[in-house]
């Protein structure tokens, strides 16, 4: 079912003004296709001096430092930092389970994605948005520039939230379609019965600068259930019959902590970032505080 969420619900003007001052930071410097506002790993044609090296035949004579040649009578080539654009990809879990909770995880994920995309667009980064639910897609790939903000918000607002999502399959397809290295933000609850390890391995294998943001609703973190219940999984229809008591709730919380801990450990060991966010945490606080603290935004 498509959820038509108004773009104003995703980003309000006041919040946008605060996003203007931010930029996306990559701990890794990647090669870009086009000139951007980001210093590239490659030495290039910007005005910022980087280093010298000996002249070899074939070098562009325009970059010879004639002043050094006047003093030392040796040919040195001046090297400058290349400024390139950055690939920022946001991978959104839009399976049916993301529609759970109050506030819903899907809305929260859209807002985070919108904020990151907005920062990326205004800084002339190449922004790609991918959603997956019943199937992989739709995808909004390679948009760039402030004028694309409305399109991005419209895309996010109209993302359907349905079906049984496969995290592993989505990550594999994303990795295959996007060989460019860059920042990848994965927004999901990671409650996938096939596990998260394979999915993350696909992304980590591509040497993305990966941010795994796990979104859980308060109802999942602190369930308020009582009595004899028949729990039905909204994605696969799986049923679990439980008698809620203090022991079971304690066990659930222990399992949840352990699961999140496993995810965090998995990410940390593989130089990926892990961030846990409850949807009861104000969205702007997550973006302006937690993401900055984690270094995704600056």
């Amino acid at each position, binding site marked *: 079912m498509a959820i038509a969420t108004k773009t104003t619900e995703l980003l309000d003007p006041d919040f946008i003004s605060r996003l203007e001052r931010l930029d996306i930071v990559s701990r890794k410097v990647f090669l870009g296709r086009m000139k951007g506002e980001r210093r590239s790993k490659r030495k290039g044609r910007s005005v910022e001096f980087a280093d010298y090296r000996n002249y070899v035949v074939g070098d562009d004579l325009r970059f010879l430092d004639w002043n050094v040649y006047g003093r030392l009578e040796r040919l040195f080539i001046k090297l400058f930092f290349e400024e390139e654009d950055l690939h920022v990809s946001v991978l959104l879990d839009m399976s049916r389970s993301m529609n*759970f*909770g109050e506030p819903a995880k899907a809305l929260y994920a859209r807002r985070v994605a919108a904020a990151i995309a907005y920062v990326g667009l205004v800084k002339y980064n190449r922004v790609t948005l991918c959603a997956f639910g019943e199937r992989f897609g739709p995808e909004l790939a390679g948009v760039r520039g402030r004028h694309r903000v409305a399109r991005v918000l419209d895309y996010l607002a109209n993302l359907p939230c349905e079906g049984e999502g496969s995290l592993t399959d989505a990550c594999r397809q994303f990795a295959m379609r996007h060989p460019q290295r860059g920042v990848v933000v994965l927004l999901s609850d990671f*409650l996938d019965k096939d596990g998260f390890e394979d999915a993350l391995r696909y992304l980590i294998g591509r040497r993305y600068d990966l941010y795994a943001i796990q979104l859980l609703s308060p109802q*999942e973190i602190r369930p*308020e259930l009582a009595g004899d219940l028949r729990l*039905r999984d909204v994605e696969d229809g799986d049923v679990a019959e439980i008698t809620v008591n203090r022991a*079971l709730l304690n*066990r*659930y919380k222990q*399992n949840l902590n352990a699961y999140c801990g496993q995810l965090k450990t998995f990410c940390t060991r593989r130089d990926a970032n892990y961030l846990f966010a409850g949807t009861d945490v104000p969205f702007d606080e997550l973006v302006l505080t937690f993401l900055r603290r984690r270094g995704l935004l600056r």
Partner: protein
Amino acid sequence: MTFLSPWYVPVLAALAAAPPLLLLYFLKLKRREVAISSTLLWRQAVEDLRVNSPFQRLRNSLLLWLQMAIVALAALALAEPAGTAVDANVDKTMVLLIDCSASMSSVEPDGRSRLDIAREQAIQLIDAMTADNRAMVIALADRSVVRAPFTSDKDALREAVRAIAPTDSPGTLAEAVRLAEAHVAVIEEEQGASTDAPRADFLLFTDGRLADVGDVTVRHGRLHVVAVGATDDNVGIVAIDARRHYERPEHVMVLGRVRNFSSADVETDVSLWVNGALESVQSLTLAPLADRDQLPGMETAGAPPEDNEAGVAFEFDAPAEADIELRLAREDALAADNRAFAIVPPPRALQVLLVTPGNRYLRDLVAAIPLGTFVVWTPAEYEQADESKLVEGGRSRYDVIILDGHSTGRLAPGNYMFFGAVPLIDGLTSRGLVNDGVILDWDETHPILRHVALDAVNVLAWLDIEASPPAVTIIEASNGPVLTLVRRPRHQHLICAFGFFDATREMLNTNWVFDESLVVFMLNSLRYLTGTTGQGTQQSLTVGEPITVPVPPRVARVTVQRPDGRRDEATVQSEGLASYAQTDRAGIYRVSAGGMDPQSVAINLLDERESFVAPYPRLHVAAGEVRVGTVAEVRPRPLWPFVLMAMAGLLLLEWFVYSRRMRV
């Protein structure tokens, strides 16, 4: 602590309740469906808690343990645990002796009769019986009846106790104890026990008013007495006599005696009812028998103190048979002694036959008595007389036949007086004349000798008579009986061993003929002989005495209409007498059959022991005093209410634990 129910009751209950309870723990509940984002973590949590199921779960479930404890307590309550009785000697074999005599019909202030209370208390004891107990039920009054033989069936015992009906009979205990001991002995023989220890406990429910308590000996058991009753409020009629005037037969005199057995002054009316209609009323004021504090300590009412007793006398004319009833207007504890009955038969002139070879003294004496018919025959005429002149309707035509100096065997059913002669019947022999005897003793209380003084009577010779029982000697001389009353079926023989003349019939044999006491004796004898046969004045019986009435030939069964409205049948014995023994209620019994006029018989309580209803706190049997207690002292104290209370407490705890678990 003992258990009143058989062992299998709690076991079956536990077996029935525990498995379903355990099963419920395994059964799937009807659960509320809730949609969640993923069952991943929940399923894992549930499986974590089921690691060692089912045993770990059962072991760790406090709720299950609490519920199992509740089931165990319920089973325990079903076993009816009971503590030891105060009188812990009560054995496993019990004999419930329930007094249903007249005094047990006394109504207590709470509206229940003493018999009702006794029945309730006996049922309480039966309810408290354990599975291995057994008991028998005996109802006792003037006779004892086994209502239930030894059994462990509580229902049968309860039903037997409930079926005990009140009677107006006097209470006796000895027969009941003998009956119970016989049953106990049978059981002991079956079990092969040889111990001399008490074999059973006799639990006597009574108000203590039992006639023969002092003669009771309990050899093979212990006697426990459960006291019943508290009230002493009773006034009763203790005597009644109704008879026609001898010279004016249509004139009836009714005499009664009323006594106050309570501790208060009583004013009451005594009314005379004739054939169901009120005839006359008299008022009485009676002083109390004793103070309230003294009454319970009195074993019997004893001689009445001044003004404690009063007589009433009524006179009226009744040309036909009259049913007489004296009735006290007062309502008190015991109703049975507030009414007394008598039957006055229709006036009838006596027919007397004198058989004598010549005795002017005797002839003149009898002729002086007002009689309907008086005939004098010689012995030869008597022996040669046609049968039809002597017999009518299977009986003698004459109410009394006086045989003077003539022994005979021609004795049609009837009443006979012999002077110097004997009836030739079995069991009676005359061994000739004896001389020089002295009259030693006579029964002054016998109706025949009422107002008869024999001090100045001399007799020269009399017949040496030997009579086998049931002959009654009324006058006894130094060498044998002088006046003997011999009863045979449908026959009465009053035998005076001497005649008025000697063997030559020329010399007087006694000076009695000159004494006025002979006139009184003759009058008494005629009244007595005719009265006891139902031909003259009606006899009065007390409760429990059998009714015996003559019936015409070929009548085999008679119907008895009881005062309580019930109709019984009685069989006629071979001698032409119908007998009915179930006279357990006071009132008028009417005996009837086809071909015979109905005969009425009055049955009265007239028993001061039963009328004296004050509670008696002690009981003296032959072996000594028996303590009188309450049923609570011999009944095991039931503990199951405490078990139920504990069960309720556990239920509360279980609810608390459950609700605390559900509160997350």
